[in-house]
């Protein structure tokens, strides 16, 4: 196997608030290989966005701070870099796509200039080269009449098109890794489908690696090669997408999959659910964070926190009573 492009090890990002120290990222480890699309799935508040912000070096401080761990991008620890170097790395090696394009783009600046600015600063292009290249990029992300639209402002684009502009900015310096945080959540399904196609094209044509952060397991099934499931600040399961959907190991993953109705067949009985709610970060339960909602919970789960371990032939799970294990 080739060396990983992104390697996150024992990452800890804490929020220092009046209520105490919250741990939205509490010892998270994972890797993204070259050319691979990895999904990071979880419900709101599980720490998936904070994980992404940590990798991008965008943790809001205060109240947040990375207090431990390492983030290796292409063999270089991002946490050891000074701000200036990090800024360059961020633009040239990672492209970032956020959920809300209207707040991520500058509303007072023409989109062509926003794309060109990035390339001028980080790729050493002059204004003319950058403008030419910006047209190509807009065309590449599927914006019709790209040349004319360079001089439009973000508000003149529809939601789906604005999202494409953001993707254009993310890929304009030709980064190897794309980090996308719920980029299609606010969009209608037909527009979401168009964007998923675009991402698929980008990863097939250009061989980009993608870290795709979402709460939607359907999108993961469509797009990802491998998946990590997060719960309460920790990765509780990691598997290939086929394994995860076929044989979920962690009771939380199984619960998530069961609570989603499918489009293919109608289930007559009521939906299976996970009772209760995700824990409040300020009052984390002892042992396994999922134990108050878990039907398999035992005394050990209350006392001892399970670690992410290899389970069966492939995949990792953090559970004392994993499901679907066959040797």
């Amino acid at each position, binding site marked *: 196997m080739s060396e990983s492009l992104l390697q996150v090890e024992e990452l800890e990002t804490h929020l220092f608030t009046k209520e105490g120290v919250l741990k939205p990222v509490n010892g998270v480890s994972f890797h993204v290989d070259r050319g691979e699309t990895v999904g990071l799935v979880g419900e709101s508040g599980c720490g998936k966005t904070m994980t992404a912000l940590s990798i991008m070096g965008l943790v809001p401080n205060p109240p947040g701070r990375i207090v431990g761990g390492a983030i290796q991008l292409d063999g270089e620890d991002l946490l050891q870099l000074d701000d200036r170097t990090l800024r360059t790395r961020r633009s040239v090696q990672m492209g970032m796509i956020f959920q809300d394009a209207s707040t991520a783009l500058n509303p007072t600046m023409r989109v062509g200039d926003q794309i060109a600015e990035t390339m001028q600063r980080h790729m050493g292009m002059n204004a003319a080269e950058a403008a030419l290249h910006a047209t190509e990029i807009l065309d590449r992300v599927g914006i019709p009449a790209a040349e004319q639209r360079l001089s439009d402002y973000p508000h003149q684009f529809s939601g789906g098109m604005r999202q494409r502009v953001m993707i254009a900015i993310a890929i304009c310096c030709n980064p190897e890794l794309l980090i996308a945080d719920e980029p299609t959540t606010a969009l209608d399904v037909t527009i979401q*489908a168009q964007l998923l196609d675009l991402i698929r094209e980008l990863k097939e044509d250009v061989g980009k690696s993608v870290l795709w952060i979402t709460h939607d397991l359907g999108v993961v099934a469509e797009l990802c090669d491998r998946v990590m499931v997060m719960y309460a600040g920790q990765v509780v399961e990691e598997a290939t997408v086929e394994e995860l959907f076929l044989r979920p190991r962690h009771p939380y993953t199984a619960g998530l999959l069961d609570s989603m109705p499918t489009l293919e067949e109608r289930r007559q009985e*009521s939906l299976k659910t996970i009772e209760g*709610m995700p824990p409040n970060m300020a009052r984390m339960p002892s042992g396994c964070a999922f134990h108050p909602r878990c039907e398999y919970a035992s005394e050990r789960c209350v006392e001892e926190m399970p670690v992410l371990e290899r389970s069966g032939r492939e995949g990792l799970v953090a559970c004392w009573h994993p499901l679907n294990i066959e040797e």
Partner: protein
Amino acid sequence: MEPQQEILVETRELSKHFRGPRPSLMSRRATLRAVEKVNLRIRRGEVLGLVGESGCGKSTLGQTILNLYPPTSGEIFFEGDNIQELKMGELRLLRRKMQIVFQDPYSSLDPRMPIGQAIAEPLVIHKMASGSELEERVSDLLQTVGLNPGLRNRYPHEFSGGQQQRIALARALAVTPSFLVADEPISSMDVSIQGQLINLLERLREQMGLTYLFISHDLRMVRHIADRVAVMYLGRIVEIADCDELFDNALHPYTQALLSAVPITDPTAARTRKRIRLEGDVPSPIDLPAGCVFQSRCPLVQPECAEKEPELREMGGGHRAACILV
């Protein structure tokens, strides 16, 4: 679903237009046709799913049916009565029977009112209970939606989104309605919470004999809960059928594309299935061209589509579609 069942709600040629922006300083305001000539029948006891993308008019239709927006034209019948012909007092009485829950429960609850009081309020307004009976009703309602009656003196912000939606539901159900419009009631919730609320809605429907208009963009959830499904595009119903029929045998090209765009939860099937991709965005509902509203994005568009707007035609078994090609 038996065809002879009683019709609880009916709309005839119901339209709701809004005044759009002025294209330029001197020109007339454009008209935004949010709901255009909708004929819909909702049977007593059924769940009618109403699906479509944002801006298609599904929420406006739901609110116009409840007369929260006065219709621009057309008629609405509730239990056989034309509700625009009712006097104020009669309409108020009718309001008891039709209720709505919205997507964002927090903004539909008064942040300064304890939840017990919020649930009691409609009972007081409609003079349905007072004194200890009122207290008892509120406790019952809280229990019905799965909340501890001991929490009645808490304020909305002390609850999670899912619990707030339960409170909004309890308040809507306080006056024992027969018809409930659920406008994207679970869209802002996490998956594990959505399931809990859907199961609650289904249980309540059985216990209280409710009829739902379930408005949602989540087709997976609609397939689970609905008996029949109507698909809206730019203010029009373009297809309506029994739930299984619609999902297994969609006729309108828009419905087919919509279903094909939903991510499916089987990775192997997701990678091999045939996809229909729509180009472009939903056009603005202002100043639409003549003919079929879907023509600008339709993969099967024909020259005839620009001539006349297709009618919603019966295709057999109550399956109706508005497309000249089917």
